[in-house]
């Protein structure tokens, strides 16, 4: 394979520091690629696609009534992070998750950060996912976010920036493990020499973390994965994790609450459950407390949580930290709770509910990216520089009507990565992001899987990496060394 014609087009490129100049940590992959011809490479790509299809590593698209299953497109060219960069990211992510957990404990207890005027109280109290009925409730070991999947991007100078924190039910970790397995099959000889850190013990660590929060100090707690069911687009992942951990996967209808305890309905009668790794959002988890029309949840689950008879990961009420207005305040949280400067930068953000910021936003709608405070998956977003005039005006009206629901950011020129383009039969630069997975058992017991999910916008020029909108993924290698 020949990459001599590869262009960086002025973007920060993960592999090339300049056209024709490969960064040292990509050297081994480059050598391997050069030894392959086009036919070998395409054969490997096809074999990997077939592998995913056969293994059923798919997500479901409900655009037609058949519920078509698709594979998440996988690009064979790995994204590589050298040791030094990774250590920096680890430090920054740890600092951030500690502060977020302290923030959540604080706002559900004394609310000091509000009383001290660091965050205007109305922002927290008006947040869509703030659960006021949980103020004063304790959670096991004071941990709110056990599993976090913060999204990171790199700007035109290669600076890592946090784009958002996903403290509810971040998904995608199964792809990290499946992608690695696919790469091992496609390039078996490359791994021993490349010095890639393994990711395979994630499930083991996840289980250890879940057992750690079991109530009643149980030695051998019953842990389950709670899923919305087989029709959920991430069902594959729920099953995958349950199988890897060796625990049951349950749906709401398999569970029952009696005397403030949660039981599952088995062939041998009722069996008590101690820990639920729940992949159902707060809104749907208990119809006796939240949305009464939810068919997915378990009536009485919240009673059992309050009574301390079952532990949830993540805890109820973490969604407030995902609010994009709260994101604005995370650097202030770090300073307030830890007395430290943030290690990781984040994207400069304007709050539409602040008069000065709003004026700036409304005057520059065609230059900014506007986001709804509580949407995800690339929805509810205005990409100013690329938007039609009508769309801009629609957002203008919305922002003026409900400023609390919007923030704006300067567009970031996302870093690019050489990515195989079947149409042109060569590698072209495509924009990427990165989601690492963090397991939190306390400030001194945080583990971050050395790797993560690199998503890539497969369409030329596109910045949207979401799987539902033409995104794909890459295996992400964290190296033992720096080259």
């Amino acid at each position: 394979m020949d990459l001599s014609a590869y262009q960086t087009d002025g973007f920060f490129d993960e592999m090339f520091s300049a056209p024709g100049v490969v960064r040292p940590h990509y050297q081994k992959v480059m050598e391997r690629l050069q030894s392959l011809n086009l036919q070998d490479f395409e054969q490997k790509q096809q074999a990997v696609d077939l592998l995913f299809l056969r293994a059923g590593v798919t997500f479901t698209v409900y655009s037609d009534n058949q519920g078509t299953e698709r594979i998440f497109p996988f690009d064979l060219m790995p994204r590589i992070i050298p040791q030094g960069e990774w250590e920096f990211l680890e430090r920054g992510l740890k600092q951030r998750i500690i502060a977020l957990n302290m923030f959540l404990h604080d706002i559900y207890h004394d609310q000091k950060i509000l009383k001290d005027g660091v965050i205007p109280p109305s922002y927290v109290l008006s947040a869509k996912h703030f659960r006021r009925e949980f103020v004063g409730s304790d959670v096991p070991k004071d941990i709110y976010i056990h599993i976090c999947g913060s999204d990171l991007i790199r700007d035109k100078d290669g600076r890592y920036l946090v784009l958002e924190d996903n403290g509810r039910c971040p998904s995608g970790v199964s792809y990290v493990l499946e992608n690695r397995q696919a790469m091992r099959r496609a390039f078996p000889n490359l791994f021993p020499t490349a010095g890639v850190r393994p990711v395979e013990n994630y499930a083991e660590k996840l289980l250890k973390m879940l057992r750690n929060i079991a109530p009643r100090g149980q030695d051998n707690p019953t842990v389950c994965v709670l899923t919305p069911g087989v029709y959920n687009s991430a069902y594959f992942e729920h099953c995958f994790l349950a199988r890897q951990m060796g625990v049951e996967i349950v749906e709401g209808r398999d569970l029952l609450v009696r005397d403030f305890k949660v039981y599952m309905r088995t062939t041998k009668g009722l069996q008590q459950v101690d820990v639920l790794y729940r992949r159902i959002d707060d809104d749907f988890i208990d119809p006796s407390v939240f949305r009464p029309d939810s068919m997915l949840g378990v009536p009485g689950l919240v009673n059992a949580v309050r009574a301390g008879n079952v532990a949830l990961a993540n805890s109820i009420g973490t969604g407030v930290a995902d609010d994009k207005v709260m994101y604005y305040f995370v650097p202030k949280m770090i300073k307030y709770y830890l007395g430290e400067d943030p290690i990781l930068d984040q994207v400069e953000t304007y709050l539409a509910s602040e008069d000065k910021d709003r004026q700036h936003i409304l005057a520059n709608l065609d230059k900014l990216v506007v986001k709804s405070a509580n949407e995800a998956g690339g929805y509810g977003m205005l990409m100013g520089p690329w938007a039609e005039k009508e769309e801009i005006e629609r957002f203008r009206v919305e922002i003026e009507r409900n400023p609390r629901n919007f923030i704006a950011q300067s567009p970031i020129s996302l870093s690019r990565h050489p990515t195989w383009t079947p149409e042109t039969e060569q590698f072209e630069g495509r924009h990427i992001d990165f989601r690492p997975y963090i397991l939190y058992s306390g400030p001194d017991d945080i583990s971050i899987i050395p790797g993560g999910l690199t998503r890539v916008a497969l369409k030329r020029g596109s910045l949207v990496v979401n799987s539902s909108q033409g995104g794909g993924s890459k295996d992400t290698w964290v190296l033992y060394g720096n080259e």
Partner: protein
Amino acid sequence: MLSRVADSLYWLARYTERADNLARLVEVNLQLLLDFKDLDNDKLKEHWDPVIRSTGDEERFYELYDEANSQTVTDFLTFNRENPNSVIGCISAARENARMIRDQISSELWETLNNLYLFLKSNDAKHIWEHSGAYEFYDHIKDHSLRFQGLVAATLPRDECYDFMQFGRFIERADKTTRMLDIKYHILLPSPSDVGGAVDTAQWVALLRAASAYDAYHAQYLANIDPANVAEFLIFSDTFPRSIRYCVTQINARLHNISGCPWGSYSNEPEKLCGKLMSDLIYSNVQDVIGFGMHEWLDQCQERLNEISQATYQTYMFQKPIDLAEEIQQQQQQQQ
């Protein structure tokens, strides 16, 4: 084990077994036609009608097709999604069940089933008929099905999961054996000595082949194909793994494994029903069946197999549906 999971395992096994039986039934009957002379529409109908009847879907068939011939029956029993009991219907349903409980089965098992599903989805009757040929096609299905069974044997721990799967498999297999025999029941009435002729022999050979029993039969009965012997073999053999007796013995063993109750006694309704059926099979012979009326006997046997699976469902899989409104109200009262 979750009751819902037990139910899925049971259906996963039943549907794969059903698909396997269907594939053999269709293939053997297609082969059989090659031996006929002067095939006309009436003869074709006469040939296929009992086959459709044996699947219990005769009514649905005539809603979907005007006449029974090789192509319509192949389509109906193999590819038509409007027939939930077609091969593709069964494999889709098996796969849906497997998807729900993927954490319970080995990845090899899942991949085999998924491969078969992808293979079926990429084919249709017209293509088979005009290009690749039915023989290779059904062979492929049988291959996957056998691989599936081999993987169940080689990769699953012998626990409750295995017991529920094998329970489902043998219920389905026993049921299918009764239905295959039923295709030929009229020949055994009133007396087996009335039968003869080359076509009949071909039909009985076909029946044995459809049950993969041809070689095993010949190992036991050295003489020619004799209808009463065939019936005896497929009902009463205690060594052939598709005979009704063998299947019921397996069902009994699985039920006792699940409950832990020793053989010779029972701890619940399905064990009681299964024990009775097993003892009837041990303490009767083919003459009793013919005396009773073969068709009636087979019918009753199907009914009893149904009762066993119903009772098993009630004992292990059924959970009273939760009345959400009542549950919500109760839990809200406890909050106050």
